[in-house]
């Protein structure tokens, strides 16, 4: 039985009177008990489809054409009351930000009770019992206690489990999950995905999984639909799409994400970024053509979505052509000699005093305990660990923003706690930081040139605007940005460009060490590949050492010479990247590695093998 069937759906935005289709010609079929993956980068329009089903399109957006048939009834034409009755009952949703979806002022029990009351369970006692059962079904321990808890007392993963329990409480026919794991830690992600498939099996529910992760979708879904700029690029059985991608975009996506095993290869980077709403309005022909490495003249005509001999449908004129898109193997250079270390950390510990309580204090929080390591000149060291493992504290200590409680740390021979003016001055050229979120790291009221060269007017330095502009041009060229962006404001740049500005600012004082805190994790795969290639190039051209903080192991493997694994403030493993990845010694490193689905679909993915072994 078909649960959801979309036919030629068009979602359009009203942009100053002009109608811009953000989703176009979208057709798919989701059968009972199946999982359909909608895969695409940000701006592909994948979330618009979830919102169109929920009738939650943003203002000035509307489904203007086509039908969305849920069990035969068209959702688009349905009147609002009838549709509202379906939502939350027959169609349930799992949100991206579990914390934001729960009301912080009510207990979990209260919110669950409200939901069940809406579903029509009359007796309060019955509702409480049901809530307990549903929470137990998603493997939450001690549900009785949990009902009394407030959302802020739960971890992100627990919140997501609660929301999954709520979504499946009504035995829905369809569950729409919009990036359900993106906001969570890697090891938790695997568990949530696993839970989702378990719930689907036991309830016989169909799932529409909206995600940016092709690898994950290939593992979990029966069918995959790849979206680019609002138009389906490729649609078919998951295996066929993943193993024999025919659209150059899908291939580029695969080649843009670094592999976890096998030889290191050069990342395929697509130029530019997904067209914005404004650019979309002016776009003619194939929407991917401006970025496509295999573009030909025919591409100015829009390609139809056809089966072109790949046992699934593709919207590309060039699908039959033998696309010159094969991975370029990168030959590892001669092993780096460990030269004189530029960063020295000797048994550093950091203890935060516990918060004051009614009487006395809460116990102290140990953020770091006895951490020692060195970073050689020009060496890239990856720092891996879950949130709360002390990664950011370590970075702050190196940058001199926090003082260690015990131990010593020095950068380029300068002690990080030295408060003298000369030491502070020297630290500026010794170490700089690239921040995680460019939105927060760039002052929205300053122009790019002003942000990038701020070090030139800091303290007692006085550079003229002309000098700063000239310097901006050089640095922008280094990070691969056109010079005419120097006078733009951050809001006028794309996410990838902002992150380049972020890097450019850190490079302005030519530091010998860069600390990069999750600098590619918020970005789309194709943009991430651009930045990783850029970092590799800058390293060769400028020469600097880097502490690369990340939870994405494939990225760390691609970029770093050595890895440090941090768990609960302790270094549990360290060594050359290849060695750690080939035979991880610590349980935490093994769990991290297993959380990533292997590239080859034939290799079974067992994210919790260890836990199961331990249980047996």
């Amino acid at each position, binding site marked *: 039985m078909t649960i959801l069937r979309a036919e030629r759906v068009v979602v359009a*935005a009203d942009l100053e009177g002009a109608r811009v289709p953000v989703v176009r010609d979208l057709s798919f079929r989701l059968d009972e008990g199946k999982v359909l993956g909608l895969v695409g980068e940000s701006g592909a329009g994948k979330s618009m489809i979830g919102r169109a089903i929920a009738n939650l399109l943003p203002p000035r957006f509307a489904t203007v054409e086509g039908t969305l048939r849920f069990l035969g009834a068209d959702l688009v034409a349905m009147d609002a009351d009838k549709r509202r009755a379906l939502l939350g009952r027959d169609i349930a949703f799992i949100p991206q930000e579990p914390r934001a979806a729960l009301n912080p002022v009510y207990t979990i029990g209260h919110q669950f009770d409200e939901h069940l009351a809406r579903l029509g369970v009359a007796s309060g006692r019955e509702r409480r019992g049901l809530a307990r059962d549903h929470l137990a079904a998603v493997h939450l321990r001690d549900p009785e206690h949990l009902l009394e808890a407030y959302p802020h007392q739960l971890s992100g993963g627990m919140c997501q489990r609660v929301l999954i329990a709520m979504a499946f409480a009504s035995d829905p026919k369809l569950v729409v999950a919009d990036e359900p794991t993106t906001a969570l830690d890697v090891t938790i992600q695997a568990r949530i995905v696993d839970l989702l498939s378990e719930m689907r099996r036991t309830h016989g529910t169909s799932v529409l999984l909206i995600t940016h992760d092709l690898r994950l979708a290939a593992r979990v879904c029966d069918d995959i639909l790849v979206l680019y700029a609002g138009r389906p690029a490729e649609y078919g059985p998951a295996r066929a799409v993943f193993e024999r991608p025919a659209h150059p975009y899908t291939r580029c996506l695969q080649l843009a994400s670094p592999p976890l095993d096998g030889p290191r290869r050069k990342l395929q980077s697509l130029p530019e970024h997904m067209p914005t709403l404004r650019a979309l309005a002016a776009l003619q022909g194939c929407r991917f053509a401006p970025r496509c490495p295999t573009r030909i003249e025919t591409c100015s005509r829009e390609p139809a979505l056809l089966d072109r001999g790949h046992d699934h449908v593709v919207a590309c004129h060039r699908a039959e052509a033998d696309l010159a898109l094969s991975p370029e193997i990168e030959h590892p250079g001669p092993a780096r000699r460990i030269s004189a270390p530029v960063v020295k950390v000797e048994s550093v510990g950091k203890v935060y005093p516990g918060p004051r309580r009614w009487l006395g204090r809460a116990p102290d929080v140990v953020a770091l305990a006895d951490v020692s390591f060195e970073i050689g000149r020009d060496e890239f060291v990856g720092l891996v660990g879950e949130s709360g493992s002390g990664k950011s504290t370590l970075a702050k200590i190196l940058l001199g923003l926090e003082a260690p409680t015990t131990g010593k740390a020095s950068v380029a021979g300068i002690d990080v706690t030295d408060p003298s003016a000369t030491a502070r001055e020297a630290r500026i050229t010794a170490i700089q930081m690239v921040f995680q979120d460019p939105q927060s*790291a760039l002052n929205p009221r300053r122009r790019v040139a002003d942000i990038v060269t701020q070090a030139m007017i*800091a*303290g007692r330095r006085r550079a003229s605007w002309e000098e700063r502009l000239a310097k901006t041009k050089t640095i922008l060229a280094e990070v691969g940005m056109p010079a005419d962006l120097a006078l733009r404001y951050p809001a006028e740049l*794309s996410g990838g460009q902002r992150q380049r500005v972020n890097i450019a600012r850190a490079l302005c004082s030519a530091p010998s060490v860069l600390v990069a805190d999750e600098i590619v994790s918020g970005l789309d795969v194709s943009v991430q590949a651009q930045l990783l290639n850029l970092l590799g190039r800058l390293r060769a051209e400028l020469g600097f050492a880097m502490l690369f903080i990340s939870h994405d192991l494939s990225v760390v493997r691609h970029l770093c010479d050595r890895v440090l694994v941090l768990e609960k403030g302790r270094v549990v493993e360290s060594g050359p990247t290849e060695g750690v990845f080939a035979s991880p010694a610590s349980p935490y490193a093994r769990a991290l590695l297993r959380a990533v689905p292997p590239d080859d679909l034939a290799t079974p993915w067992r994210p919790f093998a260890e836990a199961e072994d331990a249980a047996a």
Partner: protein
Amino acid sequence: MRARAAWRSGRVRIGGILVAIVLVAGILAPWLAPHDPEAQDLLALLLPPAWAPGGQAAFPLGTDTLGRCVLSRLIWGARVALYVAILASLGAMILGGVLGHVAGYFGGWVDRLISRAVDVWMSFPPVVLSLVLMVGLGVGINNVVLAIILVDWTRFCRVLRADVLTVMNRDYVTAARLAGFGHVQTIWREVLPATLPLLATLVSLEMGMAVVVEAILSVVGMSVEANVPAWGVMIADSRQAMYQAPWNLILPMVAILVAVLGFNLLGDGLRLALDARQSGARAEAP
């Protein structure tokens, strides 16, 4: 970009026009006023406005108990109101703004010290506090300004401290410190531009409040001397003949209303127009 967005709001436009009227009246008083505000015409006492029966065209809004031109006195009164409004609100802004930024930026014991001082200060009722201050400082318009500053700086301090705290969470502030900026430079370059819209809003609201406080203190004779034309003085003077000549009471009240309404609408409108934080940030979202 921002200014145009602000102008699109109706509140800003109406408030701006009202404030502009008061400003023009105050600045150009010697040229706009038809008479000397203190000139007495004892043959024309308590004349009604020109359009009412018995009114004279020479006194468009009538005369008071001493035969002084009400329109001229209203126009000159705008000067006193503006003098107090501008000096008092700027003074309160500087005192409260500096302390608010210092508290929010440095945190720790500096913040605790300033915040507790604000708490203690705010626990006094503002009217009582200002009257006590006036008694201590002595009568006079400059002391009115000082009293308003000393009462209302806490409002700026508390609100700005909270705003500074949210800005401090932004990575660009840390980035500025890492680039070698000093504390003053960081506050000036990175924090202040972000708190400026809020500051502007508070100042315009404070101006309205200052006008009211000055009028109250004038009525009870604690502000300007009796021979200076001020709206509060006019209200006080009109009380003797308020049944024969109600317009003498109503007109200065209308003037105060217009000024306060203007400042409040402007402040409210500016808050709505400027506080939509980083309005350009979402321009790209699909």
